[in-house]
């Protein structure tokens, strides 16, 4: 169920990228795409009936069924990089706003070529 939903989230993110002209909303759509992609990568490693990949005093042996820890390690770093790229994109958007006084992509770039 949640795997299908993650793919649909990615598609909604691409839809937002296609129809929006506002820069802030394009960055929001990119973030939705990223959340969907993260959920999809996590769901690839899910094992039904598995426990969280941490040895504790209760789950104390590696012979138990764990969920796959490798996608989790990849997504852990991906989320932090997502914050960095979002901050960079928003910084560029702020700079564009101080230069052009607009957030609309058609007003910024499409004045001469219509």
């Amino acid at each position, binding site marked *: 169920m949640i795997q299908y939903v993650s793919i649909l989230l990615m598609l909604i993110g691409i839809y937002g990228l296609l129809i929006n002209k506002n820069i802030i909303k394009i960055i929001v759509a990119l973030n939705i795409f990223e959340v969907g992609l993260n959920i999809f990568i996590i769901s690839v490693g899910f094992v039904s009936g598995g426990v969280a990949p941490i040895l504790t005093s209760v789950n104390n042996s590696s012979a138990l069924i764990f969920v*796959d820890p*490798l996608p989790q390690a990849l997504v852990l770093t991906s989320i932090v990089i997502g*914050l960095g790229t979002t901050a960079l994109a928003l910084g560029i958007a702020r700079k564009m706003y101080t230069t052009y006084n607009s957030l609309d992509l058609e007003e910024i770039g499409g004045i001469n070529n219509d």
Partner: protein
Amino acid sequence: MKKIVAILFLGILGFFIFSGIYANDAFGSFGKVNLNDRVSNKFITKSVTNDNEIVEYNKSSNLETGSSNYVTSIVVNYRSFDTLGEVTVLFVSSLGVALLLGSFGGKLTLKYKANFILRVGAKTVFPLIALIGIYIFTHGHLTPGGGFPGGSMIASAVLLLYLSDENFRAKMSSFKLTESLMGSLYVLVGIFGLFTAGYFLSNFLNTGVVGNLFSAGIVPIVYVLVGLKVGSELTGIITDFLKEEVNE
């Protein structure tokens, strides 16, 4: 019109994605994964060379990596070079934000005045949040968490101070110093492993019994470095975003 074209395009794209993923046998369906086929099986038994040795909590000792959290052992032991590159990406993006917005001089004024409860409460809660952040990145090999969430918790504590006090200004020079020092120390730990154990970022300390506090070799050291570095970088990003142009 544009929306109809977009929906049509997404329909075709979604059809290809769904049929590409679910129409062949190579991609297991949701929840039906056999971990014995995957490389993670080696990471779970904590031995890349030998097969199927069972690791037990509080009993096994002197393994390849001693951390009881498997995600931590992958992030800073098996794929530590990857993490070094990731930290570099974060550094470059914070550098870009500083180049774009750092020339602004003024401070963004928030649209409200912080009242008494917010001011006193934020000052009370700030050490608690910072302490939890430090706890999370020092115990990353035993409990869920690690350097990245711990560092961002410290950054969010600083964000709380910014929101509650209008005149607060973080000392960015010390944060920059912490960031560059921690990044250099991470590389130095790697080079030290290269000379003592043979390859870059190898685990040159002894790994003790799984589950003890001092059990994971260089994992807690690296996570403390990563946590402080990520915390100071994200604090720098937030400080840059709170700046504003002063000239008309």
